């Protein structure tokens, strides 16, 4: 019975802080590069000028209306989904949990497909709202169903309720898409997860939700660690697990609901980034949350950049590149960092 995972427990808080800073710098560099690189490569100075001294020139317009919104969407969606995933895994104590587990993706997809089936493609920016509301309602139903009676005292109730609601909504969505080719054509890029053609207006709609969610998550990290000890232990320490599970679901709705509204259902980030973070820095959620936020944002920004550069297509869905970039890394970590059995 020796240490099950290696290379992690030696990390002191100072080292964690330093790593966090490095990650932050990496994210800034990646975001700047993502804005700079494209069919026309811009120097960083021009990007700064476009942000602070906008002069309406073609380059500035390109930066402010096409490239920057796309990068901002990637940062927001990535950070939010990763944090939401970390919260879900702590709450359910289940490595398979992701924000999708509370029906976020299924709810958002159902809402978007319904709106497009009914009103056609010309819904414009409003679909962001529908997506968010659909996600939120689905998650609330899951939470209500999952808190019923005695099952509600265990995370299993939440898990089963999530599967039920998710399956139901996905079936409805599929039924609509099978019989409606034009809607299928319109939403298939969205369902792949994409940050192409995002506007500042869309990003602005979603920013408040995600920022509030992130701040709340950062403040509540400590409670998440307690919650992850299990319902009995958490109660014996004076924590009301039902209340905190509810608060966690609320935060997940803000974060993942906002992210999905912006970038479509990118499932992989929320599932995998928290695992990578825990494998690297441990299970103290005061640290897991900030690391997940930066790591998730970094993954999505880089994945989107790779998609544009390698595949040479502006509309290459970022959901696909995230998996192509993230999955091999994740597989490597799972093979090398996880020893022994559970």
């Amino acid at each position: 019975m020796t240490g099950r995972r290696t290379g992690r427990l030696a990390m002191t808080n100072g080292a964690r802080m330093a790593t966090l800073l490095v990650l932050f710098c990496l994210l800034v560099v990646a975001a700047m590069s993502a804005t700079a690189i494209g069919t026309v490569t811009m120097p960083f100075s021009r990007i700064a000028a476009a942000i602070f001294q906008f002069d309406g020139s073609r380059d500035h317009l390109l930066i402010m209306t096409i490239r920057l919104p796309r990068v901002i969407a990637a940062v927001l969606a990535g950070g939010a989904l990763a944090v939401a995933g970390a919260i879900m895994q702590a709450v359910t104590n289940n490595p398979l949990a992701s924000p999708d587990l509370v029906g976020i993706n299924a709810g958002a997809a159902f809402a978007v497909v319904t709106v497009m089936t009914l009103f056609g493609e010309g819904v414009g920016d409003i679909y962001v709202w529908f997506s968010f509301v659909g996600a939120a309602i689905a998650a609330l139903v899951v939470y209500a169903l999952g808190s019923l009676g005695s099952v509600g005292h265990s995370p299993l109730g939440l898990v089963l309720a999530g599967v039920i609601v998710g399956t139901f909504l996905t079936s409805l969505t599929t039924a609509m898409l099978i019989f409606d080719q034009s809607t299928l054509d319109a939403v298939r890029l969205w369902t792949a997860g994409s940050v192409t053609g995002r506007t500042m207006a869309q990003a602005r709609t979603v920013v408040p939700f995600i920022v509030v969610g992130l701040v709340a998550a950062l403040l509540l990290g400590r409670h998440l660690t307690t919650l992850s000890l299990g319902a009995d232990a958490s109660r014996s320490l004076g924590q009301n697990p039902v209340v905190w599970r509810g608060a966690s679901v609320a935060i997940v709705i803000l974060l993942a609901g906002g992210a999905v509204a912006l970038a479509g259902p990118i499932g992989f980030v929320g599932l995998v980034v928290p695992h990578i973070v825990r494998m690297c820095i441990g299970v103290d959620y005061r640290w897991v949350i900030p690391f997940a936020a930066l790591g998730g944002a970094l993954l999505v920004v880089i994945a989107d950049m790779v998609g544009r550069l390698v595949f040479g297509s502006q509309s290459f869905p970022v959901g696909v590149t995230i998996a192509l970039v993230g999955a091999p890394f994740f597989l490597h970590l799972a093979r090398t960092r996880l020893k022994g059995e559970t």
Partner: protein
Amino acid sequence: MIRLIVSLTLLLAVLVAASLAFGDVSLTWRELFDALAGTGEPDPQSAMIVFDLRLPRVLLALLVGVALATAGTITLAIMRNPLAEPGVLGINSGAAAAAMAVIVLVQDPPVGLLQAAGFLGAATMALAVYALAWRSGTSSLRIILIGIGLSALATAFTTLLSAFGDIGDVQRAMIWLAGSVYDASMVKVRLLALWLIVPVALALVFARELDLIRFGDLSARSLGQPVDLVRGLMIVLVTVLSGAAVAACGLIGFVGLIAPHMARRLVGGAHARLLPVAALIGACLVVAADLAGRIILPPVQLPAGIVTGLLGAPFFAYLLWIRRHDHR
């Protein structure tokens, strides 16, 4: 226990009879009985409807239900995770990727090719997950995580094809993936039945091993179980079972996850009881789903995989609701 098995069997029989009787042309119970027993004045048309059109379809649905529920029960036991279903091993994503590739990349693929691709995709993924998770032994968590990683890659491939493929092809692939038993034939039924006999029987034989492995690797090993061997064998069974189900009628989700959970609530955790009850529940679910898919919105036929979600999910929620005061 015996009462439960009998009532489930009766329920299944009623569902089968109803599936044979109802449809575009509905038969009376009398006509159905005559056609089945060959009594009275046999009406050649109703005999044709019952034997050639509906019976293969119903039997196929029944077999697929048994296969999915058995595979789900095994997966739940070896993964020790309430969310685990055969999809965890990458089976669904592998089959979906292979089928999508065949439909989008091959002009007018024959049905046989599609089925073979589905099975091969599922089997390849399961094998890859197990192989990658092997590091002088396996662990449930590592299998789950590797499964997540590889599934993500396969799903990315599927998404890519669906995002850029011909829209008509994509739609056809979605229908196939939604899981449907509409092109059933007696040949297919016989093939599937033969294919399923060995793995289902093996699962029953290994019921005690499944009871044991649920306790955790260490306890199981201390009781003399070669854990890695058993887990490997069980994964082969799961692959054979759900791969065949996928090949027969595409992806029918939910059954593999929900049937074992329902069975566990009814008869507890011993697999000698759990397996047959789950299999019966799975058969009922898929037969009922196919029947409902045919009669909800005629003449439209909803794929059974969609109906399992639409009807199974609320039903399961109802079960949670009425049993909310029970402990355990």
